[in-house]
């Protein structure tokens, strides 16, 4: 391939100035070339737009409204039928995009905000700091993940911070975020350990760069692509985790969510009411497929090792 940044050949005297292409620029070029990746990206963008429209109140704000008789099969009026209270399943599905995406986004951000600094510190400083962080994540990794999430979700429901109750959505994304950072921390630690002894870090150190600056400005940008790839897969994981939490009665309290819809539909299927379950399943299905494909394309585009 010809995407390797060409270096001006110094032996031939002053060469013409070659416009440098950054890793991100290169990655985007590679990503753009894949048709499936671009379709996936479009699907993700649609979900995000729906979630934003719901958040601003422009879409599906009236999801709680009774629009017809209960359990009406899909028709021209109600594309996905109605639920037990005669509410439009379509509106609920759309509104749930906001709920589920919010949970996944906040949980991911929390995990990244814990996992990356911890991993970077463990990898960079080594010694006692490393030993403590490794101990901490070894302990958390030994405990069955689902139990840990459930315990956190349970505990956090009754917690009040500065007069603000965590019950509902915050309990969910905190439970997911606070338990989900282990893998990322381990990944970043390993990568930072490799970077620590590289020449550019030694150079920065010899310039008198502070350690904080070396980690934040020099090393972390070199592992950002790993965070991004991890983020895309983590996001899918959290959307699916929300379903299980909702099934166990630990889901969002007021807002509808895909998990709550599936949970509500669990006894309805035998009676032939398939649409609520189908709508929520399809909603999860499409964004999962899109994120999975996008994540693969992202890895191919960003991993310098695969560059040939």
């Amino acid at each position: 391939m010809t995407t390797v940044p060409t270096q001006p050949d110094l032996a031939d005297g002053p060469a013409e100035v070659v416009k440098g292409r950054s890793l991100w620029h290169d990655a985007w070029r590679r990503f753009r070339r894949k048709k499936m990746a671009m379709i996936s990206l479009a699907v993700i963008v649609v979900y995000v737009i729906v979630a934003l429209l719901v958040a601003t109140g422009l879409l599906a704000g009236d999801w709680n409204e009774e629009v017809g008789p209960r359990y009406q099969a899909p028709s021209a009026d109600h594309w996905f039928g109605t639920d037990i209270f005669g509410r439009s399943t379509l509106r609920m599905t759309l509104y749930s995009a906001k709920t589920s995406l919010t949970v996944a986004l906040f949980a991911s951000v929390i995990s990244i905000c814990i996992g990356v600094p911890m991993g970077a510190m463990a990898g960079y400083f080594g010694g006692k700091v490393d030993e403590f962080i490794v101990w901490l994540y070894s302990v958390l990794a030994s405990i069955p993940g689902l139990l840990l999430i459930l315990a956190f979700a349970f505990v956090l429901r009754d917690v009040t911070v500065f007069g603000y109750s965590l019950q509902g959505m915050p309990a969910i994304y905190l439970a997911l975020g606070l338990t989900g950072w282990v893998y990322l921390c381990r990944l970043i630690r390993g990568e930072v350990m490799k970077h620590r002894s590289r020449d550019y870090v030694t150079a920065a150190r010899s310039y008198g760069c502070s350690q904080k600056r070396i980690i934040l400005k020099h090393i972390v940008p070199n592992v950002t692509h790993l965070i991004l790839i991890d983020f895309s897969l983590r996001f899918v994981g959290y959307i699916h985790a929300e379903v299980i939490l909702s099934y166990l009665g630990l889901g969002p309290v007021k807002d509808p969510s895909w998990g709550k819809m599936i949970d509500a539909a669990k006894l309805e299927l035998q009676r032939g009411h398939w649409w609520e379950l189908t709508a929520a399943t399809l909603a999860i299905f499409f964004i999962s497929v899109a994120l999975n494909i996008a994540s693969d394309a992202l890895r191919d585009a960003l991993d310098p090792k695969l560059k040939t």
Partner: protein
Amino acid sequence: MWAYILRRLLYTPLIVFGVLLVTFVLFKLVPGNPARIIAGPGASESTIKEIEAQIGLDKPRWINVDGAREQGFGALFDSQFFRHMWDTPRFEFGDSVYKKKAVSEILYKGAGPSLKLTVPMFIALLATSISISLGITMLRGTVWDLLIVIACVIGMSIPFLAVILFGQDWFAGKLDWFPIRGYDTGFAGVRYYVLPVILGVFAGLGSDVRFYRTVMLDEAKADYIRTAYAKGVGTGRVLFRHLLKNAMIAVITRVVLAIPFLFLGSLLLERFFSIPGLGFLMVESISSRDYNVIAALTYIVALLFIFGQLMTDICYALVDPRISLK
């Protein structure tokens, strides 16, 4: 090598200590007062106090300063924390608040039904995904490879709960191929397990095939494979004798670390198919806030996991001469 193994052995109690600490904080300290749950609604304060004294909740949480002042230094450790740290490693989990029975007895009863579900599921899943991944290495670059990868992504993207709901409704309800739910001991119970095992395998296949495919393809690129082909070894022999043997390291690591979690059973499958295993027990204990049971279950599975990890590390150290003190 021996220094590494020794270090690894000494490190293990530290992790067990951490697990004990986490289980204490999460399941004993924070959840509120189990005495109230035992006493039932509407119990008088004095009854609750009595039960608290019975299960040791009247003791201070971390250290017993007052006790030490009155009865000497030894009583300093007469607290909820030290009690937990002393009892749990000896597998003394106390009683279930909800079922009024010893936790160890409940767990012992639930392990059988759970393992009968998870072990066949695990073996079937492993065999299927490894066969498919081995097959893919032969089809690398063809349209079949692509189709299988797409199928994997599709399989991974359906929520597990939806797989169970649709699967149960269709195969047991509409087609009537399997009983909808139920449980029986001995050979008569096998028929109840067939559908949950199939659904579990289906749900796990996507991510497993993707994982093993990557492992196998990495191996397939290695020089020794090309050498094997070059000296005229047949495809079957290359796959099974050369590739599979080398890929086994990654496979075994994954398998060993997955085994402890088999004891947990399957939360969702057991619930929907009425299998009275540990997964079922867990959902029940969560909704009834029976924290003694959850703490015990967490501790046992964590212990098995730590042990499994220790064994793999030691085996690696024995086999691989490159591992030494880091």
